[in-house]
Structures are given as structure tokens and as C-alpha cells.
């Protein structure tokens, strides 16, 4: 395997793009990434998407996006790993370049949540769970996360309001991100008073669903060096799975697939968790933030919430998370979110994160979760000076 670098990034704002079709939204991100990379044509395209078959009656996204992004003729596929589809597309592009199948590959995550109504979206999202033994019993995807949060609070003695710093931090960081869906701060009082969706999860524990597309161009490190420009190396690309259903896990409150995915990434990059300057984690729900910090080795079991209460997760803290708003407040265009995380990590490492810039950062991690911990894809990126 050879070294791979990210040479181009592109994104659309996350929100309700009523006037733009899925194909055109993807094309905007792809074109932006190609312009940024100063490349006209990648050799392969991987499209990350989860819901288009259900909300837009559209499969065959590899060819569709290639055509509408002006890349007709190239090899292209859709990659699906539920909410981690975007990160999976990035990993496929990474493998294509690292393995020598091509020198330049493009990964694009796209989701068009507003092509279905909120009820349709709720039903479609539940397909990330076990259709026969979770969804069939009337569980929404939110409800599955609520079961984890309820048990976590019971086992470790936290109150609901203790999770507030995760949501407050995300909204604070989104406030200065021009691509965020909810660019405004929230208060602790707003968090405490928010309407329940599936107890104990309220509206302000859950990420906001929106339309969005993001894209990254990956190239061999050799080619990247010859092009000049800011260089961000993929120090690790790793993934692992767990059971799809929560009830099939020995210890539901420890995300084993995530732990394995992170450990593989640390080993590949030759680093320890403490070496990371920031962590773009998958905060689909506040409980997932806590469980992520624990499974990835930043906090002992049951103590992820304490890290948030201590202020460690803010941009001034020792482990900033969700530095441009995260899934919670940048918005969660499901199959695109994994690519947004990579785009944001690259912005930080290039020093292009504007008011949200972390001074002097060199090493960042982005991690995306498919389902409630079933498929976890971890990337570690490094600024090369």
C-alpha cells in the first residue's frame, strides 16, 4: 500500500435545498472539490448515499452522479454503510489509490432528505437497524439510541441535563460555519426544556436532518507532492463491524466495533489517542458522543459525559470535538455526513477553518458510525509541512 493524500475538498451548505435535485447537489460538491484540487478528471468515483432508493426512488448513483458532474465515462459506484456511507466511500477511494488501481479517486457523499416527508425519512432511517427484530417492533432509529441513553444514565448515574455540553458545543461551533444548518448557539435552559422525541432523547439531543453533499479528491502522495498546494496525508483509514441489532451485543454500552476500528487506525498511524489535536466524532445523538469518547480511548467507561462537563471538548479544550458544528448543528445529511467530517478535518489541518480554526493543529481524526455502532469507519489525517 502506498501513501495517499487529500488534494481537494468541496461541500454545499447543509439545509433544505428544495430547488436542487440529488444529482445536482452531488455535482456541486464534486465540481468544488475538483476545482480545489486543480484536477479536471479523477479516474474513479465512489458515491456515499443511504436513502436515495427509499426517498428518491433512485439507485445507480455512481453513473448518475458521474454523468451530472461532467465525468461521464469514468468508473463509478455507490457505497452503502447506512449513516457511514460517506466515510465508506472515502475509504473505498483510499483503497483504490493506496492499492494502485488508480492515481486519483473522488469520494462524494450526498443525501436528499427532503425528497420524502418527515414520516418517510423516519421510516427510511429505521432501515439502518435490524429490519426483522428491531424495526419490525416499531422502533425508530431514535428509539434505539434512546434505549442506550436510558441504560447509560441508569448504570452510570448521569442525569439527562449532564449531556447538555455536547449539544451546546456543537451549536456554538456551528454558529460561525457558513455551511451549517443550525448556525446559532443554544443555552442550557433550551436544552433542558426541549421536546422529547423518544425519552430520554429530546430534539436537542438529536442531530438535524438536512440535504447536503460533500466531496474529497484523493491522490497518491507522489502525485500530490508534484501538484504543490497544501498537503494533508491520510495517516490511517480503518473500519470494523459489530452486530446490526443492539440486542445481539454482549455489552450494549461499549461499542466494540468502534473500539476495534479506532485501535486499527491508531496502530496504522502509529499514534496514541492523546496525540490527536481534534476529533470529528459522529454525534448523531448526544449519547453517541459519550460512547464514542469511551470506545476510542479518551475516557473510561461511563465517563465520556465527564469529559464534556469538564469543557475538554470545546475548541479551547484538550480534545476539541465537532469543531464546525458536528452532525448535531452543521446538520446530518446521513450518507454525506462522513464526507463532511473529512472536509472539515482538512479545513482545520490546512488552517482554513476561519473563526473556528484550531491553532497549530497537525493530527485529526474523523469517525463515522453506520447504524447504532454496526459499521464504524475511522480516518486519521495529518498535515504535512
Amino acid at each position, binding site marked *: 500500500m502506498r501513501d495517499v493524500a487529500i488534494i481537494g475538498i468541496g461541500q454545499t451548505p447543509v439545509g433544505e435545498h428544495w430547488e436542487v435535485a440529488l444529482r445536482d447537489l452531488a455535482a456541486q460538491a464534486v465540481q468544488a472539490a475538483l476545482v480545489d484540487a486543480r484536477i479536471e478528471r479523477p479516474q474513479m468515483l465512489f458515491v456515499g448515499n443511504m436513502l436515495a432508493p427509499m426517498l428518491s426512488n433512485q439507485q445507480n448513483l455512481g453513473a448518475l452522479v458521474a454523468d451530472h458532474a461532467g465525468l461521464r465515462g469514468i468508473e463509478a459506484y455507490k457505497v452503502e454503510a447506512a449513516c457511514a456511507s460517506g466515510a465508506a466511500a472515502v475509504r473505498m477511494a483510499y483503497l483504490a489509490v493506496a492499492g494502485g488501481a488508480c492515481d486519483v479517486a473522488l469520494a462524494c457523499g450526498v443525501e436528499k432528505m427532503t425528497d420524502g416527508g418527515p414520516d418517510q425519512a423516519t421510516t427510511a432511517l429505521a432501515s439502518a437497524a435490524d429490519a426483522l427484530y428491531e424495526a419490525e417492533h416499531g422502533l*425508530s432509529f431514535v428509539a434505539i439510541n434512546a434505549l442506550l441513553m436510558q441504560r447509560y444514565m441508569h448504570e452510570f448515574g448521569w442525569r439527562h441535563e449532564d449531556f447538555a455540553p455536547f449539544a451546546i458545543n456543537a451549536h456554538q461551533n456551528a454558529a460561525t460555519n457558513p455551511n451549517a444548518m443550525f448556525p446559532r448557539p443554544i443555552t442550557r435552559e433550551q436544552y433542558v426544556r426541549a421536546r422529547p*422525541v423518544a425519552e430520554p432523547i429530546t430534539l436537542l439531543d438529536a442531530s438535524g436532518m438536512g440535504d447536503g453533499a460533500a466531496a474529497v479528491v484523493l491522490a497518491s502522495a507522489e502525485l500530490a507532492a508534484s501538484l504543490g498546494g497544501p498537503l494533508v496525508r491520510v495517516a490511517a483509514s480503518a473500519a470494523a463491524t459489530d452486530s446490526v441489532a443492539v440486542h445481539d451485543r454482549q455489552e450494549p454500552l461499549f461499542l466494540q466495533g468502534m473500539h476495534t476500528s479506532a485501535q486499527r487506525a491508531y496502530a496504522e498511524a502509529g499514534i496514541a489517542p492523546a496525540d490527536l489535536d481534534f476529533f470529528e466524532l459522529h454525534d448523531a445523538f448526544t449519547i453517541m458522543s459519550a460512547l464514542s469518547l469511551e470506545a476510542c480511548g479518551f475516557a473510561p467507561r461511563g465517563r465520556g459525559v465527564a469529559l464534556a462537563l469538564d469543557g475538554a471538548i470545546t475548541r479551547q479544550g484538550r480534545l476539541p470535538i465537532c469543531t464546525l458544528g458536528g452532525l448535531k448543528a452543521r446538520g446530518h445529511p446521513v450518507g454525506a455526513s462522513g464526507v463532511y467530517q473529512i472536509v472539515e478535518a482538512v479545513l482545520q489541518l490546512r488552517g482554513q477553518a476561519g473563526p473556528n480554526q484550531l491553532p497549530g493543529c497537525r493530527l485529526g481524526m474523523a469517525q463515522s458510525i453506520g447504524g447504532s455502532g454496526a459499521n464504524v469507519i475511522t480516518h486519521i489525517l495529518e498535515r504535512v509541512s
Partner: protein
Amino acid sequence: MSIPSYWRSRQQRLALVGEVCPTCESKLFPPHDICPHCGGPAKTRFAFCGRGTVYSFSQVNAAPGGYEAYAPYVVALIALDEGPLLTAQLTDVSPDAVYIGMPVEMVTRQMRQDGEQGLVHYSYKFRPLLERVQS
């Protein structure tokens, strides 16, 4: 769920039939055919007794398609007496009365109906364990 899928899983849904691994003796529900604990083949049928305790619970207010008419309802992870966890709805209980550790037992209930002419889905739900009276 389609009619073939419903028919195929009738033993699980109506009688809580799972599997037991002949190698490591793990009880499996839902059935896996290959034991997730030891990796050996596990196709020996095993009927669970239907009793357990609430491991966690939540109330669904915004229900997925097909379940809107039943919302709000309580869902739970149940720790079965024989070991495994399963996901199910609770029934015959006020949401405020549910607590982690509550003893429950399996009952067969209607889950939903696919319209006036469609399939009526039945499956397991769990209710608070009824006290047995000596006769």
C-alpha cells in the same frame, strides 16, 4: 414485513423459539444459525420460557410508517431469563410505571395491520409479570 417473511419467522414471533449452541451452550434469540460466541454451527431449536426483566426502555412518540396509529408506545430491551437480550414493545402497563429491572413476561399481541384488507401482524410483546395464584 412481507407475507413470506412473516410466515418464515412465525416460530420466533409467536412462540419465542430461538436456538441453543451445541458447542458452547449459548442460548440465541433471534436465531443466528452460526453461534456469534464460538463460531460453531447452532441450529438446535430452543424455546425460551418467555420471562425476563427490563434492561432499558423508551417511549416512541414519532413512530415509523405503519405504527403511527399506535403511538405513543413503550419499547424496551428485555434481558431474557436464559441470557440473551431482545427488543420488543411493552404492553398492559402505564409508561410511568416502567423501570429498569422490572420483571416481565411474553404475550402475543397484534403489532399492526396493513390496511383494511391486508395482513394483521402478530408478535411477542412483554407485560409486567402477573402474580400466580395457587389453585
